[in-house]
């Protein structure tokens, strides 16, 4: 009786702790997002720091050099990319309210009415809806950075956190390990090592895949003279993390933009073709080389976590959903594996 009562109390306390923790993490989700982003960036950069250390450099020195190089690169990128990006966003909204696209939308509405007679073109307000959706997108693009406290704090805190994760990451790991009770110490150490190996290759793979696809998309769209090619390319690269739906979303966005800007049918076909070729290259060349196959997430799971991420944390949540799920999967699978090997479960 006593033991079962004790168990119930323990269970209730455990559940309460979980609920409180859940509430706590949810209420600090903005800070948590900064931490997760910093952690992911530090994780991706870690091998670079280690390779400089391998060449005889002190760790702090290595981190500083990488920061300076990335700083110059990012500053250059901002100088080159941001002004056209802002222009692109402005012209999207301007273009939508201008005469040429208005004519295009009314043409489309009549075409739709011809095909499906029971649709009343007067109630469709296609242009209004697309403008609304796109201005929503523009806003949420800025809210990616804007929602997290403020642009300035984020831009300062993230590099700051990345710097210390890189410089003191090992000491932090050691400090965490030192708090683990003796009984679980070796198991935890093993677990951290195994998770680290798998997670590192998974996250770096995802990052390089997104980078390569984004870069290829930008080049292809630029060659095909598609407006807002940088914005769509960046989006396509990030969306590529989501299987099936991601690549399609990138392609569809590009085609819609071509359509809105009054591009020819031939241009649309070329854009679709370009995305098909990029996908083929991704599947045949890029993915087998850079993406770790050890973390196989089921597409259905990915789509659901992307939706959940979006529900809780907006666009940023959608983008972080895939790597965070990958991280959790590795952690849970390795924990179970380790506990079995150490006869704990």
């Amino acid at each position, binding site marked *: 009786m006593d033991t079962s009562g004790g168990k119930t109390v323990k269970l209730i306390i455990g559940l309460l702790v979980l609920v409180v923790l859940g509430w706590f993490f949810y209420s600090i989700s903005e800070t948590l997002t900064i931490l997760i982003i910093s952690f992911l960036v530090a994780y991706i950069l870690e091998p670079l720091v*280690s390779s400089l*250390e*391998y060449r005889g450099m002190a*760790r702090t020195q290595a981190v500083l050099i990488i920061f300076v190089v990335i700083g110059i690169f990012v500053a250059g990128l901002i100088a080159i990319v941001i002004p056209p990006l802002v222009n692109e966003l402005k012209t999207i909204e301007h273009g939508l309210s201008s005469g040429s696209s208005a004519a295009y939308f009314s043409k489309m509405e009549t075409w739709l009415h011809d095909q499906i007679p029971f649709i009343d073109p007067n109630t469709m307000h296609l242009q209004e809806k697309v403008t609304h959706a796109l201005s929503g997108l523009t806003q949420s693009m800025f809210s990616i950075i804007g929602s997290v406290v403020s642009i300035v704090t984020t831009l300062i805190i993230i590099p700051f956190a990345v710097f210390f994760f890189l410089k003191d990451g*090992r000491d932090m790991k*050691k400090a965490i*390990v*030192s708090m683990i009770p*003796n*009984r679980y*110490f*070796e198991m935890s*150490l*093993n677990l*951290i*090592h195994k998770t*680290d190996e798998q997670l590192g290759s998974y996250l770096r793979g995802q990052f390089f895949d997104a980078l390569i696809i984004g870069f290829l998309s930008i080049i292809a769209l630029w060659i095909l003279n598609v407006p807002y090619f940088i914005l769509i390319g960046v989006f396509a690269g990030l969306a590529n993390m989501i299987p099936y739906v991601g690549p399609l979303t990138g392609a569809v966005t590009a085609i819609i933009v071509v359509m809105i800007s009054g591009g020819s049918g031939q241009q649309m076909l070329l854009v679709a073709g370009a995305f098909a070729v990029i996908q083929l290259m991704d599947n045949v060349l890029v993915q087998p080389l850079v993406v770790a196959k050890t973390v196989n997430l089921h597409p259905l799971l990915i789509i659901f976590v992307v939706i959940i991420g979006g529900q809780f944390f907006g666009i940023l949540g959608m983008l972080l959903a895939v790597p965070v799920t990958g991280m959790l999967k590795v952690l849970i699978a390795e924990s179970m594996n380790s506990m079995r*090997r*150490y*006869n704990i479960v």
Partner: protein
Amino acid sequence: MGEDTLWSNIFKKEIKKDENIYSVLKRVPIFQDLSWRELRYVERILHRRTYKENEIIFNEGEPGVGMYIIESGSVYIKLGRAQKVLAVLSKGDFFGEMALLLDSPRTASAVAGSPLKMLGFFQPDLFSLMETRPQTGNKILRRLAQMIAERLRQTSLENNAMKQKLAQYEEKTEKVT
């Protein structure tokens, strides 16, 4: 004056503690080739653990992650269900070094014989050392290889001696029959 005593006391204590750890580390064969600077770096990555008397360090059959160096106290190395004591180790001794190279299960159990302080050096630490400080990592690895080669030589010698004994025994039994 008072301040001077305070600071000198703090530093004296620190230096004394460090000397103790370094003298323990210097006694460990795999760290013998390391310079003072390298030893300081290795000391930074070692895990410091404390155990109560009779606390289990690891069980036979569990996956091994690395080696332990005894800073103070004693350790019983036990084997089998009967927990037969194979060895009693004390300050400066080390055990579990095979797990630095092999992912195989522990061949015996280790239990704290008294309140115990140990330094842990584990496979992930050795691998990361080889990645970031290859010279230091190589020195440790070379010593480890020498140690294992020496053990192999000893085992071969013992094996040969056993074979000879067995041959003599067989000869004797043949003569008797």
